[in-house]
């Protein structure tokens, strides 16, 4: 599915298609659950497609359990997909053998949410940053490694002296910087950021967001930026996908999604964000109930059990994610700007 190349935030860097994800599916078979009764299939990611362009940031938003993190893990093959393709530089990642996949990972790195859990407490910062070079010795010649570690640390706002300290001696924001330095060690093309700032306080969050934007321009990175904080995603993204129960329900430039959303779920989600400025406050759409279980999701449109606009057709026919209402892709039979 090709979308028009829109949405560069004034940066000249957004370029050709780099990473094509097609019909990605990840189902988990669960056994008879402790409290849910029967077993079943969790449709964690269910037919997701998108194209990531060079230098672009694609934001992915959605509530807990919508499949955001599963999507990240599948793309890195930390878990195996059920079906679909993910094509990077002409290769479908899902068809690669273990050795080839290791090589491909050089181009595709991840930054996790929890800076506390994702760093080995027994290693020094220098060891953490240089660890990827053990697998890819060719990236930085041995003699240059020390200098390169220092470069990377200073680049992310740490000091050369920090190289010999251990993660527990750092604050959350600093640990996230260590994680960023490590992800840059292999000169990747794509960095998947899974809730990279959610564990951080607002003042520290801003520092890390600025850093991510700076290194993006400097290293020509493309980001898949997963977060539940809608303001953070708006700030950093060129395009945004909204996920609900394993599916993209809307996909567009940040302006299309934030200023002219056409899917009722996106509209409700955005209206729920508490606004600091009274002027930004819109009429709140309070959704009834909660997200249904991804085991046996509703037929037709998965949002229909909570949608104020649902009609008979919504239960019978699944709305495809296609351009609607004279604008960007939206998976709603009745896609329309709010209030129309």
């Amino acid at each position, binding site marked *: 599915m090709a979308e028009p190349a829109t949405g560069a935030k004034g940066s000249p860097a957004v370029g050709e298609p780099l990473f094509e994800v097609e019909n990605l599916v990840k189902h988990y078979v669960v056994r008879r659950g402790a409290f849910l009764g029967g077993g079943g299939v969790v449709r964690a990611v269910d037919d997701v497609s998108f194209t990531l362009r060079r230098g672009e940031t694609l934001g992915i938003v959605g*509530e807990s359990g919508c499949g955001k993190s599963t999507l990240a893990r599948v793309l890195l093959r930390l878990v195996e997909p059920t079906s679909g393709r993910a094509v990077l530089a002409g290769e479908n990642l899902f068809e690669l053998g273990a050795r080839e996949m290791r090589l491909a990972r050089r181009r595709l790195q991840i930054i996790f949410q929890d800076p506390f859990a994702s760093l080995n407490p027994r290693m020094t910062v220098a060891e953490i940053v240089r660890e990827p070079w053990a697998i890819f010795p060719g990236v930085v010649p041995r003699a240059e490694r020390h200098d390169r570690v220092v470069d990377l640390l200073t680049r992310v706002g740490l000091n050369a002296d920090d190289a010999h300290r251990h993660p527990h001696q750092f604050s959350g924001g600093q640990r996230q910087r260590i994680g960023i330095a490590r992800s840059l060690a292999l000169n990747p093309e794509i960095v998947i950021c899974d809730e990279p700032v959610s564990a951080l306080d*607002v*003042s520290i969050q*801003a520092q890390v967001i600025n850093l991510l934007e700076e290194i993006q321009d400097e290293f020509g990175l493309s980001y898949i930026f997963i977060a539940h904080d809608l303001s953070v995603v708006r700030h950093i993204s060129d395009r945004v996908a909204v996920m609900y129960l394993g599916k993209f329900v809307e996909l567009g430039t940040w302006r299309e999604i934030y200023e002219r959303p056409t899917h009722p779920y996106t509209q409700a989600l955005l209206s729920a964000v*508490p606004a*600091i400025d009274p002027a930004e406050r819109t009429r709140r759409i309070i959704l009834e109930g*909660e997200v249904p279980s991804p085991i046996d999701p509703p037929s037709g449109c998965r949002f229909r059990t909570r949608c104020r606009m649902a009609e008979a057709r919504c239960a019978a026919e699944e709305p495809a994610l296609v351009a609607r209402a004279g604008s960007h892709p939206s998976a709603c039979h009745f896609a329309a700007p709010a209030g129309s």
Partner: protein
Amino acid sequence: MAVADLTRAGAPAEPGRDGALLAVSDLRVSFQTPHGVVDAVRGVSFAIGRGETVGILGESGSGKSVSVGAVMGLLDSPPARIGGAIRYGGVDLLKAPVRETRRIHGDRVAMINQDAVTALNPGLTVGYQIAEMFRVHRPGTSRADARRRAAELMDRVKIPSARQRVQSYPHEFSGGMSQRVMIAMAIALEPDILIADEPTTALDVTVQAQIMQLLAELREQTGMALILITHDLGVVAESVARVLVMYAGRIVERGPTEEVIARPAHPYTAGLMSSVPRAEHKDRKLATIEGAPPVLTAIPPGCAFHPRCGRSRPVCSGDRPELEPVTSARDSACHFAAQVFDG
């Protein structure tokens, strides 16, 4: 200084002593730890009047939870060392015997917190746990009556099919539904004050909207006062009339929420406001506050914010600024509060 704040006539930054339901004065809490003494709360004073809504805003570790933990009598001492006074009615909760504080904690002043799921006992039905509020605090209540009222409360907090679900166990409830159960327990005895410590932080934004709406409706119906603790500026902006901003165990600014947001009088508040990503700043770098909050075993002398403050002058590391009026409606603890306020 703390007491003076409460008696200052006609100062809208705080209700006068007469109007106050709960008055915290010069609260100090420290913890003995293997790494040294953690000074978690360092002289906090505030008061809340009947039906009022007050927010406590601050980043992780600023002392928000410890402050209200002291109010609720939840801190074990030792390790906590607690000083100051917390008055409710004529009672100093820090000095009164348990038989007196028991009539207040959980009864006149109730609390909900972030972790509703673990706050519930997994082995008991939610109906039983709500009914227990009556059994413990209103010993005359019959079992049937307590059970009936538990079902009513579940209905009141909008748990669907409340009548059937009194028999459910906590694991059958989502995070949002668990928080509703906690709210049902908290409002069971019609408290004068509800303290909500990050009640929606663990919840999705659409569920947060449901819970905040529920709290607003309940407040409307009962007239209870609300102390809302959060690190989310948007939540503060939408839900409380007054706000206290905390940094490193002290209140650094307080006043009417809208005014504080529109025109901060403390550099830390100003920094917080500008580090939130907003639509109009999309193409700009975010403003940041340099560095990180201090380690509480080694709080910088003078103004604790000085190592991170763009306005810092030599006086800032020498003299500690006290919380003083900038206008009749605003207090700020900054040597240069007037200049900050004037932009």
